[in-house]
């Protein structure tokens, strides 16, 4: 974890309201592990008191990038910032994915929306290639499909409106795949909470392990404020653990969905 003032290398529209931001962060880049995130202070956002968290998408040399959707005041201001402008970044943060080992379980990645971004490094650094299941509402919500294909992964697209790939939810081809064979597999998922919950259930039913990257509202991002907690099994009972510190990636068996809202 480091705090660094970084320069924007590029910040361009991807699809629709999604943008790709590349920053030069020489000290941070080498430290990044798959599934970690960056806590970004958008300096021109004047009446804000919080940073904004984003999963780290790609790392290249002394740069890293994020893939973000413009949804509110922070991301809207960010989307208007050009190359050369400065941001303050605290990164890398959080406990990321366990990178698969050669010869271990076959990784099945499940992503929704910008969850795709959080999994690129995992796919890239995994010695074992697998399948990426990616879902979205419309075609424009399917991000970085090409990048995953370029890594040699099998990408299975679903959209709710059928405008790209198979029509339906991402869990449909995932379940089909799990039924198709009995090979050892492990799930890795990142996306909206509803999807994560569904993936957790599928994992349990199929008795495959799963690592889920939880999307919780954050404040400090470094473990001091206790905003971002989720209920996690501990001892005989449960306790609130911090998504920003113990997570964002949790073993799906540990999450108490009944208590989480």
């Amino acid at each position, binding site marked *: *974890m*480091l*705090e660094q003032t970084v320069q924007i290398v590029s910040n361009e529209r991807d699809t629709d309201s999604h943008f790709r931001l590349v920053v030069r962060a020489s000290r941070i880049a080498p430290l990044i592990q798959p599934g970690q995130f960056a806590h970004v*202070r958008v300096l021109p956002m004047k*009446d*804000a*008191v*919080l*940073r904004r968290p984003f999963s780290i998408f790609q790392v290249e040399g002394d740069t890293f990038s994020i893939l973000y959707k413009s949804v509110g005041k922070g991301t809207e201001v960010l989307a208007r910032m050009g190359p050369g402008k400065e941001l*303050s970044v*605290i990164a890398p943060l959080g406990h990321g994915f366990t990178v698969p080992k050669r010869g271990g379980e076959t990784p099945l990645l499940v992503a929704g929306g910008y969850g795709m971004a959080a999994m690129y490094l995992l796919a890239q650094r995994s010695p074992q290639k697998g399948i990426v299941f990616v879902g979205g509402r419309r075609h424009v919500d399917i991000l970085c499909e090409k990048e995953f294909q370029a890594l040699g992964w099998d990408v299975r697209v679903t959209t709710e409106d059928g405008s790209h790939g198979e029509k339906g939810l991402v869990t449909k081809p995932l379940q089909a795949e799990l039924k198709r064979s009995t090979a050892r597999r492990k799930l890795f998922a990142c996306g909206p909470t509803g999807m994560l919950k569904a993936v957790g259930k599928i994992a349990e039913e199929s008795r495959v392990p799963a690592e889920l990257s939880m999307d*919780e*509202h954050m*404040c*400090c*991002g*470094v*473990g*001091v*404020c*206790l*905003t*971002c*907690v*989720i209920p996690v099994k501990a001892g005989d009972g449960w*306790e*609130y653990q911090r998504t920003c*510190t113990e997570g964002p990636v949790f073993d799906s068996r540990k999450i108490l969905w009944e*208590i*989480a*809202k």
Partner: protein
Amino acid sequence: MNLSVQIGKLTLQNPVMVASGTFGYGVEYAQLLDLNQLGAVVVKGIRLHPVRGNPTPRTVEVASGLINAIGLQGPGVDGFIKKYWPFLKKLKVPTIINIWGTTVDEYAEVARRFDTLGGVGALELNVSCPNIKEGGAQFGTDVKLLSRVVAACRKVTELPLITKMSPNVVSIAPYAKAAEDAGSDALAVTNSYPAMAIDIETRKPKLANVTGGLTGPCLKPIAIKLVWEAAKVVKIPIIGMGGIQNAADAIEFMMAGATAVAVGTANFYEPQTPLQVIAAIREFMQQRDIQDVSEITGSVQTTK
């Protein structure tokens, strides 16, 4: 040039601490800044037993502020001593422990436990948390209860006692006086202000706890007034807080009457804030040839 200040028998190397609940147990920020440069580290509120806290969402950003309803999640006295004290006791700067309870007796018991621990810098009595049903604000908005809590803690410890005041009172003067009279060595002014936000799309409160405590820059003008009013009626030092983002804010609190200050919400945005404030107070003093930081305290010129 002297930046050190006195809080009861505790000497701080400079007047800038961090606010309870915005700095965890110190260790979390240790990678980002040198804790030994702070005036003091103030930890998240601790009661006797472990506390789970409120359901989420627990915080929401508002105009120039934050509303939180963490619900004082914490490891309890034993958990704290086991998990965090080994790190904290090695710091060169004092650790101030923010404590609370649901009864006067529990406050006293927690105080006693930390008294016997040894090495604690001071105890801050949180009688003003708006986010828990029992304990917290109920003690801070009732003069008699407030006196009893402070007196009960005073009996069991010689550690400097800081009473953390609620802003949610008609006038802070009687509460400030009551805390002083009951043996408090200092006042912390102020805790968060009861507040609420509603998501108009879902028609639900933005916090699971429905209401929470407002902090951040939006609170500063209210906090400055409270410090100024409290300073008029007590002789004990005041630790000013509420929306401090930079040295100008900190100096404003000191001019209003604060001996020391704490940086809270601003840590979330910029963890370097406390150190930046210390550096800029030093610069402010240099430029104006102020020899002792205490010259700033209470120096506002008013006719009232």
